[in-house]
């Protein structure tokens, strides 16, 4: 059965640039293990998903988000 199309979180909230420091937003898009959630599940647009992936990777590097959580 086809799933109803979800609107992208970032276009809905008018977020044009995703900042790596906004960890509260980024945390919505990682699973309990700290891995990124696919856009198939989150409904984020391709453009935003690319930005989101960069932001999560930056936040991980600077220690704001974990690489892995057990």
């Amino acid at each position, binding site marked *: 059965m086809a799933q109803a199309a979800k609107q992208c979180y970032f276009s809905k909230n008018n*977020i*044009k640039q995703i900042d*790596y*420091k*906004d960890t509260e*937003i980024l945390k919505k898009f990682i699973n309990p293990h700290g891995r990124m959630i696919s856009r198939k599940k989150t409904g984020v647009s391709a453009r935003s998903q690319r930005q989101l992936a*960069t932001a999560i990777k930056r936040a991980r590097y*600077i*220690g704001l*988000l974990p690489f892995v959580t057990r």
Partner: protein
Amino acid sequence: MLRLYGRITAITHMDTEKTIGNDGSKVYEVGYIIVPSVPEEKVQSHVDALKALLAKNKAEIIADENPTLRPLAYRMQKKIGATNHKFDQGYFGWIKFELDKGSIEKIKVALDTDEAILRHLLITTVAENTYLGKSSLLIKEEGAAEKTPDAVIAEGEVSVAEVTPEVVK
């Protein structure tokens, strides 16, 4: 991890063109973690030194946030002198600035060689504010509010179920 960082910088360079100003300057943002062994009253002097370096290179500071002590998501290691030190927390701060394209290398070298800086992240960005900070929590509440229609329907069903036995009685 270094390889990953390399990939991130590669991505960063991809979207540089739109951030270049008319005068050949670019908007950068540096996020840094100062080692927690620095006493809290001396943290500001490190920030001032960094800002002085930026001023020396004719950078224009757009926005910044002073470092605050916060736990790190994972343990980081830095070689200071001959020994490796491990850190679980650090003072995280950031500065957004506009700088001439050619001068960024000097800033990077200074950040790399500074022993008080545990780690730093130098990226190109846009002059407009991108950091939502605490206002991102407001979005969360809106998200919760969106769920309420479902909750209302559920409550409505419950109330009907509660009402009917009374009617029967």
